[in-house]
Structure formats: structure tokens, C-alpha cells
């Protein structure tokens, strides 16, 4: 069963018990290439499934040779999506599902990796501001509307062309 190329993004913040603390989907409006529109609920379940499966690969890279860095690009791959991850010192994982362009050259791939890295660092900043709030219990679900709006702006600013 083949999935049509959607060009959508899925971002999730994963806590210590592999539970999602925050989920965000970015939809691209021109779905003209798709012939079978995927239902929104199925899409979300599929994204969660892919990210959960990718968590093993993320933890493997944590104990690997380059384990002390924060940003891991293309840690896992599923059909036409690629998973990139960013792990903080307190082992909170930011995971981004983004479409892979097979025909991309190495230069464009490097630019893509820079864009994603900048996005992750910006998310880290706003996450930390949230974590410093004494009324936010760490490792719990993020239900702050301000956080969601800020993240929405960051996605628009950094990942618009991805």
C-alpha cells in the first residue's frame, strides 16, 4: 500500500516514559499530487506509530559514538518520511517527521539539516522558558496555549519550505 506524497510535518515532544507531551501537525495546502486522501485520524495514528518505533533508533544513537550531541538527523526512515530528533540534557526528546526528497543533492541536504537544527534550537528555547515556570510540572502534558502559538510561529518561520 503506497502513501501519496503529502509534504506534511509532524512534531512531537516525548517525555521520559515515552509519552507524548505535545503534538503538532503542519499541513501543506496543495495536495494536488494525492489521489487517495488520507483521513486525518489515520494520519495522526500513523505518525504516532512511526515516531514511537523511531524512539528505539534515537536511544541507540544516544549510546553510540556521537552520543553526546543534541541533534540527530535522519535517525530513522519510513516510506517517504524521515525522522529527526533532538535530545535535551534532561532526556526530553523533540521528534520531527518530515518528508524526504530522494532527488536532493548533498548541498541541499546540508541546508535542510541546518534548517531543522535551527528549528530544534528555537523549540528548545521556548521549551526551557516553559520548564522554568514553577506551575508547570516537568514531564507532564503541555497544555499551554501560548506555547502552542509560539511553536506555530516557529514552524511557520523555519519549516515553511520543507
Amino acid at each position: 500500500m503506497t502513501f501519496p506524497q503529502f509534504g506534511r510535518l509532524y512534531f512531537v515532544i516525548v517525555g521520559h516514559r515515552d509519552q507524548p507531551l505535545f503534538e503538532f501537525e503542519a499541513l501543506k495546502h496543495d495536495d494536488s499530487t494525492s489521489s487517495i486522501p488520507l483521513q486525518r485520524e489515520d494520519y495522526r495514528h500513523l505518525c504516532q506509530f512511526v515516531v514511537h518505533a523511531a524512539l528505539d533508533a534515537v536511544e541507540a544513537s544516544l549510546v553510540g559514538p556521537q552520543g553526546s550531541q543534541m541533534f540527530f538527523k535522519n535517525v530513522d526512515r519510513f516510506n517517504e518520511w524521515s525522522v529527526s530528533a533532538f535530545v535535551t540534557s534532561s532526556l526530553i526528546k523533540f521528534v520531527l517527521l518530515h518528508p524526504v526528497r530522494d532527488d536532493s543533492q548533498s548541498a541541499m541536504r546540508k541546508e535542510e539539516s541546518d534548517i531543522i537544527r535551527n528549528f530544534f534550537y528555537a523549540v528548545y528555547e521556548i521549551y526551557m522558558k516553559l520548564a522554568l515556570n514553577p506551575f508547570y510540572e516537568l514531564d507532564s502534558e503541555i497544555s499551554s496555549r501560548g506555547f502552542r502559538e509560539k511553536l506555530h510561529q516557529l514552524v511557520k518561520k523555519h519549516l515553511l519550505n520543507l
Partner: protein
Amino acid sequence: MADTFSGPSFLYHLLANELSVVLFNELDKTSDGYAPLPSLKARKHARNNPPEVEKLDESMKRLNVTPDVVLSKLEGMGYQVGLRLIERLLKDHQRFKDELEIMKYICTDLWKYIYDKQIDTLRTNNHGTYVFTDNTFKPLTFFSVEGVDQYYAAAARFITFPCGIIRGALSALGIRSAVSAKATTVTACVFEVIVERS
């Protein structure tokens, strides 16, 4: 990061936040939610007859609060502060490779950030117990007491908060532990960290 979150005033910021949380929880417990604003007459009366300041021990007796409750609350506040402080301090830092590196970081950078000095000795038995010894622990150097017994009784209040900070810092890095402290000689303090083994 905004300038509010840099520099030593950041610690006071965190502490003020913790106090506000404690206050918030306390206010929740009153029957009507919030204390009513005093009337103009009451305020004038209070201004002309200022209340006598009550000693801490007497207020504790009056409110029927045992020292244990106070100390555990202090430790709890230290825990929250430690969690958030370490998140902020490790922003541009690499992830740690093992437990001993984490302990070394706490002894050097974290202690230096809070108290302007490092912990003097770190000992371990390599089976999950670490002992930090600070020979001139900052809060304990500002005491003026009449006798040594009074000193040890009062010192307990000042060393539970840093216990909480250490426990919170370890917890943020994924290490569950129990931290206890003892004031050994005048101005010296020993923290014992026992890491939970799975």
C-alpha cells in the same frame, strides 16, 4: 535567552517563584479562597499599633507545625529549584556520559554558580553512595550563636534547601536519589547522596 535568565539573580528569581507556589497552595486551603482586604479602619489601627513580631519557634508552636514539616517543605522547594536550575545551566552543555561526571558537575559548576565556590571533597564508594564535603559552607558562615548546641539545632534549617537542590538536579538528569546533610564542625557540612539502583 532574555536577560532575566542570566546571572546570579536568576537563582533568586527561581526561589521567588517557588515561594509564590507555596503561597498559592496555602491560599487554596483557606475556606473562602482569599483573605479579604482589610478595611480602612483596620489598616489605620494596624498602622498606629504595629503588631509585635513573633519569634519563629513561638509561631511554629502556635500553628502546631512540627520542624519536620517545615524541613520537608524546604527540601521540596529546593527540589523544584534544582530541577529548573540544572535545565537552565545545561542549555549549551553536552550530555553527560556517566554518573560520576554528573556528580563532578554538581560539585564544581553548580556549587560555583550558587555559592561562588566549589565543593571541597567528593568521595564515593562506587556503589551509588557519594559524599560531598564543604568546609566553609556559605550559609553556615554567617551565624552568631551562643553555644555549639544552638548552632547545630539551627543549622539543620539551612542545609535542607541545598539537599533539595542536589536531589532536584540529579532528578532532572534522570537519577533518582536520596540526599541528606549533616553539619559536622562549625561552618563545615557534609552531604550524602545515595543513588537508587535499579
